[in-house]
């Protein structure tokens, strides 16, 4: 609990997942929780989403992996992670002991592998699974096919369905921004059996080092995140919530309570704080604190704010 009497005004739920407050951390920006414990009591958050875990450990992409951009950054980490076994052995015990919701992000190169991973994560301490269907920094498909799950409704549906079949945990499908019709992807995830959607992953981008005449990132392009992309995320959440009944978790450029309110009012049931933690390691805590103050001042609740900005009856034509 965050403290104070009105803390239940912060409560929210993402499908079957009940959260004491709507502030989670975004995958890949909060490690496995433990790294952040020296900055604040991470168990106060609504939940923690882990760095994406893959079946086998991944070394990640060559370096440089980071470039700054106006009001944002590019990354091409390439899902460097300890792998499933390493996660279960070295990372999960700490998370499991925390009194907050633990969401494990997973990524695979085939739908079957998503199912396998989800199955292996039916263990104590894992409260939900987030499917990273939209990482722009890796190659897809066993045969080197370069299609992102979240670029194709049928791939999205298949990946979600495989995870759904293998796990009794709530399944959150994480989508990306670079599609013409986000609702079609959301609907595909819904057909696959997703309990919720998470929007958005980073936006593919590139910075060129004009002195060296090559891309700054060793891999060429990377994923854009931070305040620069916030309007894109808010729009996607708004579109999804207008089109579908599935609960949505909003992420992209949130660094203040005000930013989180934009997402909630657009229709998100919860939010994730990502890049902002790099600028200020207490960012997620600060967002939560600011939300709490706002709700106290307004005498309102998170549940009452969700979707408040969805204009009913007006077409967006």
């Amino acid at each position, binding site marked *: 609990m965050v403290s104070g009497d009105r803390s239940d005004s912060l409560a929210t739920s993402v499908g079957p997942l009940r959260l004491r407050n709507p502030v989670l951390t975004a995958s890949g920006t909060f490690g496995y929780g433990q*790294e952040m414990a*020296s900055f604040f009591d991470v168990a106060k958050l609504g939940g923690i989403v882990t*760095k994406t875990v893959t079946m086998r450990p991944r070394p990640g992409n060559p370096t*440089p992996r980071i470039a700054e951009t106006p009001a944002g950054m590019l*990354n091409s980490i390439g899902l460097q992670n300890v792998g499933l076994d390493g996660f279960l052995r070295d990372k999960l015990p700490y998370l499991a002991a925390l009194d907050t919701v633990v969401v494990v992000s997973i990524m695979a190169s085939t739908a079957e592998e998503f199912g396998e991973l989800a199955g292996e994560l039916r263990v104590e301490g894992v409260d939900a699974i987030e499917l990273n269907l939209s990482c722009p920094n890796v190659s897809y498909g066993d045969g080197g096919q370069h299609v992102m799950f979240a670029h194709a409704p049928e791939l999205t549906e298949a990946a979600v369905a495989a995870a759904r079949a293998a796990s009794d945990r709530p399944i959150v499908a994480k989508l990306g921004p670079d599609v013409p019709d986000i609702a079609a992807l959301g609907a595909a995830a819904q057909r696959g059996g997703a309990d919720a959607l998470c929007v958005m992953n980073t936006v593919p981008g590139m910075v060129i080092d004009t002195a060296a005449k090559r891309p700054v990132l060793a891999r060429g392009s990377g994923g854009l995140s931070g305040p620069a992309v916030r309007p894109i995320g808010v729009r996607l959440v708004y579109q999804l919530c207008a089109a579908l009944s599935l609960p949505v978790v909003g992420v992209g450029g949130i660094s203040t309570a005000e930013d989180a309110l934009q997402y909630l009012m657009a229709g998100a049931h919860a939010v994730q704080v990502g890049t902002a933690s*790099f600028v*200020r390691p207490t960012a997620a805590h600060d967002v939560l604190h600011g939300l709490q103050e706002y709700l106290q001042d307004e005498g309102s609740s998170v549940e009452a704010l969700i979707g408040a900005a969805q204009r009913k009856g007006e077409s967006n034509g």
Partner: protein
Amino acid sequence: MSARLQECTVAANREVAPGHALVTLESGIGAAAEPGQFVQVSLDGVAGAFLPRPFSFHRAADDQFQLLLRSVGPGTAAIVATRPGERLTVLGPLGRGFELQRAIASGGSLTLVGGGVGVPPLHHVADFVRAGGAGSEVTGAKIDALVGAATAELLLAVDDLRAIDVDVRVSTDDGSAGHHGLVTELLHDELGAAGGADGRGRRPGCVLACGPHPMLRAVAKICRHSDVPCQVAMEEPMACGYGVCLGCAIPAAAAPDRYLLLCKDGPVFDAEQVAW
């Protein structure tokens, strides 16, 4: 020893060379800082400086620490322009500094090799050792410093180093002071051109270096050739500074596709750890 996020007041800020400022911040962050560790300075309100900017400690005491920095872009320009009384949000101390115990235990003197704004962490080393921070038995250890810069006026902290009994030799790219050429040439000279043999009857126990990547690569090579232990303080674009973004990867010598994290495993590495 874990890092703290703190709003620090600028106590002083003066220009020490063209475009270079020595900034004194009131804060307890430096109290436990080890030479080679760094801070992240948040510049939230400055357009073009979205991510925090990393700086080595130049000097650290219980209630103050100093940064010595060069204005190269929007972030450093904003810090250089601060006035006493203004506040900066700082996270630190971060990273792993020089292993001074090991450096000194290996016997002999310390040789510091600094290029450009690579001098601050080395100044911190000397200051720390003289103040007894590395153990009072080595407070008086012999310390040499080789300091290089583009021109004479950009040689940093030379007087300060000499004032604490560091034997300083300098080099400049344009020959306006000291050796006309690279600071690595001074090192090569110092360690003896022939490698194993010692040019001047001296053989440092350890070389500690900080500066641009090509300089560090050359230092590492010279030390390896001369079989002198070498620790380097490196740079790499960073985001978080505390080990979660995995952005600051440095390829490890051990395996081409294994990475060290600059902000957590470094910024100081044993030269042998790094794939140059």
